[in-house]
């Protein structure tokens, strides 16, 4: 049936990400401060202080796409890290030992580290190790997990930490806090996030103008350049291109018949092959919980620090399974998805443990689901044959469904 149609914006994206990785190295040469940050850390504070953020997790994804993950993980395992540890963490360590294996030559040394545990608690250990290795200060933001309702004391606890962050950053950088630049950066984050959401929501159209695989490839700026004009500009361009496709009735996949959602991080090292495999069967991934997670944003408010704190406290992985189930249900309805693929990602325990239960609940509510084992960045944990067979069977089953009134 053919391959998914590529977006023009993809060309600009590669250039943009290369510039992002170079920025860290250049910053060191220019004498600007560099901080390693987790993907759920409030980077807007760093922009306000002219600190250049570098994302080891994103670097892990880039290495995954380049299929360098397995070799870099192995290098870390030779140092003593166990096979069952998160592959992003191991890639980060591996690239420190063998930077030539990284498609971007590894990462520059940081001046300090900013770690928020709203995406998982493993990152705290990872960053403790980085702090020991580089002998640089580590700032940890503790955002308590929210099982159900928000606990007022937890909210205050998080807000208090965010209020103190400017002071901590001033101490580390020797610079004066700029509230104005902070507000600007938050507004830019909000704009980029809103544009990103528009792109994602555009897939409600039939045929879907772009796939979740495109989203995975295009999400780099919303993760690593939140709070910058470059991210806003990029997503405006992407949104416009997608709008054009919708206007023309142009789908990403020729003869779209089955529409699926994806849960969890992608299998970075198999993005194209999975995408082509699905497209060949008239199947399009219309959305992903992972890309959707970056639509969370701080509403406009005079109490901007508190508003930002609240937004970062309710990120996808810091919320209970009931919340996740409801979001998937909503996404499935709004994007007219026929089913959900759950990637049981060995490397991301908080994302993956509980997927079986969510899948069972969705299934009992009439949403077909399947679970596939793999790893986001370590290609050693991927059984291609099993994936193909299972995906094929799932798609066939969905294609044969005879729901009355189901739009095809």
């Amino acid at each position, binding site marked *: 049936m053919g391959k998914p149609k590529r977006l023009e914006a993809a060309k600009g994206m590669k250039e943009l990400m290369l510039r992002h990785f170079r920025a860290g190295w250049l910053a060191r040469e220019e004498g600007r401060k560099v901080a390693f940050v987790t993907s759920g850390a409030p980077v807007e504070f760093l922009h306000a202080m002219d600190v250049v953020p570098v994302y080891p997790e994103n670097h892990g994804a880039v290495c995954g796409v380049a299929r360098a993950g397995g070799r870099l993980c192995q290098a870390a395992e030779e140092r003593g*890290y*166990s096979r069952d540890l998160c592959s992003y963490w191991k890639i980060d360590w591996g690239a420190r030992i063998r930077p030539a294996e990284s498609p971007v030559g590894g990462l520059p040394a940081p001046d300090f580290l900013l770690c928020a545990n709203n995406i998982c608690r493993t990152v*705290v*250990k990872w960053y403790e190790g980085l702090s020991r290795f580089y002998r640089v200060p580590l700032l*940890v933001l*503790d955002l308590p997990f929210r099982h159900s309702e928000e*606990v007022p004391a937890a909210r205050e*606890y998080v807000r208090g930490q965010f209020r103190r962050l400017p002071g901590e950053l001033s101490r580390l950088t020797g610079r004066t806090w700029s509230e104005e630049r902070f507000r600007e950066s938050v507004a830019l984050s909000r704009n980029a996030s809103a544009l990103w959401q528009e792109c994602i929501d555009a897939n409600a159209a039939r045929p879907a103008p772009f796939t979740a695989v495109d989203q995975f490839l295009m999400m780099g700026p919303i993760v690593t350049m939140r709070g910058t004009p470059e991210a806003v500009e990029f997503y405006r361009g992407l949104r416009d291109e997608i709008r054009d496709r919708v206007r023309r009735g142009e789908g990403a996949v020729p003869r779209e018949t089955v529409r699926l959602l994806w849960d969890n991080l992608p299998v970075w090292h198999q993005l194209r092959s999975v995408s082509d495999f699905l497209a060949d069967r008239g199947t399009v991934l219309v959305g992903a919980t992972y890309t959707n997670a970056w639509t969370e944003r701080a509403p406009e408010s005079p109490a901007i620090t508190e508003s930002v704190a609240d937004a970062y406290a309710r990120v996808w992985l810091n919320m209970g399974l009931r919340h996740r189930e409801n979001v998937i249900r909503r996404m499935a309805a709004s994007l007219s998805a026929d089913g959900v693929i759950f990637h049981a990602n060995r490397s991301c325990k908080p994302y993956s443990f*509980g997927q079986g239960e969510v899948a069972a609940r969705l299934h009992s509510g009439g949403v077909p689901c399947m679970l596939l084992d793999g790893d986001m960045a370590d290609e050693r944990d991927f059984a291609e044959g099993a994936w193909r067979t299972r995906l094929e069977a799932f798609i066939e089953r969905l294609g044969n469904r005879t729901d009355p009134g189901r739009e095809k």
Partner: protein
Amino acid sequence: MPSGVEWAFRFASETCRSPVAAVSRWKWLSGRKAAGCIPIYVPEEVLHAAGMLPVTIWGNEFPPSPYGGVPPFVCSVAAGVVSAIRSGNWGEIDAWIFPSTCDTFQNAFEALFPPEDGRSRFPFVFPATADTHGAAEYMLDRVEAFREWAGEVSGRAVSEGALERSIRVYNENRRIFALLEERMTESPGSFSGMEFLTLSRAGMILPKEGHTEILRAALSRQGDASGNVRAKMFVTGIMATPSVMEAMDAAGAAIVGNDLALGHRYYSGSPEEEGDMPLSLARRHLRRDPCSTLHGSVRPRIEEVLRNVARSGADRLLLLRMRQCEPEAGDIPDIASASRDRGIPFLCLDVDLHAEERASAKVRIEAFVEMGE
């Protein structure tokens, strides 16, 4: 008639062998409720003050159930807990407390209870970093919420006086347990690894008052076993299994210090017995011994472990890593290199509660003991 010492070990062993029977017996005798605590940061004094029996569940009380449905990347502690609860094996437990010790336990709380299980449960989401601004206030709020919950579940409000009495009971138990550890340091081989494991584990099932008596009886044993000791071991990690302890005992390795979660870290740190009791419990949590699941910049774990190795007089460091435990796995290379830098022989042994490699563990421990003899 067995002696006091024999009775103590026999009773503790029987409790470990059949924890459900022990809980059941306590419930029948007392007519009160039992609360299941997922390891290890539950302020049990609150449950005790509410008249309940806190029972720490380690996931190896039952063989894993085929109905567990737990993914393979989940550690065997969480897998064992989930599988046992889903199989209905812990029917004697009336309520559950899940601390936010790690991502896996957090998710287990969310995932494991079938819809028809109406037992009350409390997610104890505590501060992950001891030295974060506001951690004390937040922890205090959680202790108070827990206190209220425990009162509702048990039907007995947790008064300040009851809490004070419970703290005293727990502190006495901690004090006697510390004596046991002290004896093991000062007189290597005075208690075997298996005896230590049994005494430690039994205290997480039995009421603390009874456990204190068992420890006292055990401590009354005299004798010098130092002649059989070939190596003095400091053991770190989450927990040891019986087969690891048996292998150490067989190889002549005496435990002279530990910071196991199922061991020293569970029993260490006493809250103040005067003043505001919930605040005292909150403070205890924030001053806990370093652990791989808690971030603390004041007393980093690796330095603390090595300090304790030196203090104990150990000549080897054994790290028992729970397979699939990311927080623990993250520390290993740095502990290993720091240990070697100080000339302390180091061994990391993987532990899996449901898929033990007994022969391999035995051989590796034997070789580790022989090393440098």
